[in-house]
């Protein structure tokens, strides 16, 4: 099965490369635009998925990613607007994410509040607070993060624009993907994290402090959503507006599950979703089909449902065994 999956993966990769190249030779700018849009739309979803993944791997469901995005975007924006420094803003976003993560941990791990409730508290609270305190007269002032070309790589056709001419948080996200992958599957922390998500009792009996590790992980994971919020306000958009996360925290959750709770899986799922989004814009921009935008707009969602169902048929994935359960010692 493992080998079969790997085989399928390679076939998919080759297919994508071949298709991309042939489309590129047919219409360069449009192909570049679609693929660049794909990669771009994937960043936020990936950051959210990383946040959710670390929580779920530790046995804690996080449905508060949406709220974490929104609150972090708000503070990233506000701090940048006050200090005039994008870096300070980005840091503030991460700090906000960590704080939101800590609040989730305090509720779900410390106070043993039901995890779904804890996440919902974050979502409603963030929407309410950011809307309540948002000051429409503020603006970023310094302009948003702009693309950094990676030397001559950026001049390559197609991949240059798609991968090597990107703003900083996008690059950082790609680095973090690798870091989280290595940490999760190779490091001591990762091994223990996976253990407490699958069988906290077993971890406990070998002396791992389950509650403490969950506390730490859920808090840390918030940092990824926080970076996502910074991305949203400082890199993707360049301002704040009420409810600007627009359900992407939930989409990130879907992407995480779809990507089988692994960093690269999630990235692939996010790219896939980003692709359907970019494709749908492409169809409209270039009047490829003459159908109402409402139908074109369904494309990413319908395709995702179909793919999730098909991949379920191909071999269902399993949730971490202890997911959603409060751990009681003894």
């Amino acid at each position, binding site marked *: 099965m493992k080998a079969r999956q790997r085989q399928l993966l390679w076939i998919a990769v080759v297919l994508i490369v071949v298709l991309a190249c042939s489309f590129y030779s047919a219409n360069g700018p449009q192909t570049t635009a679609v693929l660049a849009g794909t990669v771009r739309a994937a960043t936020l979803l990936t950051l959210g998925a990383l946040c959710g993944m670390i929580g779920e791997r530790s046995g804690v469901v996080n449905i508060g990613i949406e709220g974490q995005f929104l609150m972090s975007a708000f503070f990233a924006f506000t701090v940048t607007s006050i200090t005039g420094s994008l870096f300070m803003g980005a840091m503030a976003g991460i700090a906000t994410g960590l704080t939101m993560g800590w609040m989730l941990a305090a509720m779900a791990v410390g106070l043993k509040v039901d995890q779904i409730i804890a996440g919902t508290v974050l979502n409603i609270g963030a929407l309410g607070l950011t809307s309540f305190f948002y000051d429409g007269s503020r603006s970023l002032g310094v302009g948003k993060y702009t693309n950094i070309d990676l030397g001559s790589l950026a001049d390559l056709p197609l991949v240059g624009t798609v991968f090597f001419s990107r703003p900083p948080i996008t690059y950082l996200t790609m680095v973090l993907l690798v870091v989280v992958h290595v940490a999760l599957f190779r490091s*001591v922390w990762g091994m223990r994290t996976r253990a407490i998500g699958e069988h906290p009792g077993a971890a406990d*009996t070998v002396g791992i402090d389950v509650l403490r590790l969950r506390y730490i992980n859920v808090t840390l994971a918030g940092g990824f959503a926080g970076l996502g919020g910074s991305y949203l306000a400082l890199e993707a958009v360049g301002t704040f507006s009420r409810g600007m996360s627009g359900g992407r925290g939930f989409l990130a959750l879907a992407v995480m599950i779809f990507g089988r709770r692994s960093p690269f899986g999630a990235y692939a799922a996010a790219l896939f979703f980003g692709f359907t989004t970019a494709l749908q814009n492409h169809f409209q921009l270039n009047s490829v089909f003459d159908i109402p935008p409402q139908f074109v707009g369904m494309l990413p969602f319908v395709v995702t449902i179909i793919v999730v169902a098909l991949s379920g048929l191909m071999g269902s994935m399993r949730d971490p065994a202890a997911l959603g359960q409060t751990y009681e010692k003894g």
Partner: protein
Amino acid sequence: MTDLLLAARNVTKQFPGVLANDDVSVELKPGRILALLGENGAGKSTLVNVLFGMYRPDGGQIIIKDEVVDLRGPDDAISRGIGMVHQHFQLVPPMRVVENIVLGAEPTKRGLVDLDEARLRVVELSTKYGLEVDPDALVEDLPVGMQQRVEILKALYRNADVLILDEPTGVLTPQEADHLLRVLRGLTETGVGIVFITHKLREVLAIADDIVVLREGRVVGTTTPDQATESGLAEMMVGRSVVLRVEKQAAQPGDVVLQVDDLKVNDDRGQLAVDGVSLQVRAGEIVGVAGVEGNGQRELVEAITGLRHASSGAMAIGGKPLTNSSTRQIAANGVGHIPEDREKHGIIAAYSLAENSVLNRYHRTPFSSRGIMHREVIYEHAQSVVEEFDVRTPSVTVAASSLSGGNKQKLIVGREFSENIKLLVAAQPTRGIDIGAIEFIHRRIVEQRDKGAAVLLVSAELDEILSLADRVAVLYDGKLVDVLDANVATRERVGLLMAGITD
């Protein structure tokens, strides 16, 4: 050399409403094996959990290597050289053997887990103690016997010189159990001290140096194997005399009730687990299915009871073909099923005893009609099951999760026996329960047989098969290697068949 490896001095542990350990004192010296005996709920697990730092005692002292210690948690105990193999394995199923063994004490290289180093050490340990395992296998793919080796290796990896084993043989075949006992003996020769909990008196007499018997949280006796007998120990545990042999008349087999023809069944991973089994069970007889766990027993039972799809072959009950029928249809044809895994299949922990007592017949009259449940009827039914089957519980409205293992089992047996059944499929019906309850359940099974039911008994417990079955079928690698009459089925002969040796 230390004198006392591990000791409890007047340990008291109180749970809400239960005094689980009451002024308990035990001692373990280097190179010795201490056996803890007692019926379900006597406080054995509680005591060893206290010794391992999982629970904090409410009173008394713990002594490790001549030193009074205050254990803050298992890591404290581990760092002092205590290792424990829990009653319910504490392994992470989707992780590799080697990962499970080093978890919590991982060797590292450049900040990452050094699995190569870990693998080396695991192989080294397993050859040294005769505990062969494949370090890269996923634990979830391993049979229980293997999983237990992993548990023991886990303790040894941490340089334990005290090994606590809570009911380690409960899930093993006789061969595996014997092997384990030999391994434990070998360990004591290196100076390791062992605390050993079991319900099997034979094992205690075979291996222990000291025996401590608990009842209702108190030590009721301390003895040694040369002074003790099986019946004496049993009486000390239960507080009354216990019949260890099952009293039964010769079987009076009637018509064929269960007919299985060339059945093939796959396991969870899609591998062929039951490979063309044909079998008959007649009314009024008990057919025991012996076999090392993982040789297709589970899949066979699940296919017969409708929990699992058979890929080919046929199955009929009372002449009615029911291959791949639903559990409900099969039950409706007079089949009672005591499932192997009571927590997984047999009960719903959050449900009350009353709801559990109708778990697979809530949809029938008199428990419900036209889609409406009749709560009074269900309540009364549960009351009668509880009374008749001696389920110890304050009331039938409490959640089943509050019952002890033995009492959960009695509830299930009571439920399955509360109707006239043509066929009883009993899988591991007495696993993990104490002698008193075993005696009770065995008597009930024979009673069913004598009322004319056909009984298919699957057990990893060879003694149970030999004492109950009228015919013994042996499964090996998914195939039925032989069916013996009880009078020719000796321990040795069945044991060899279980190992796949047919001649």
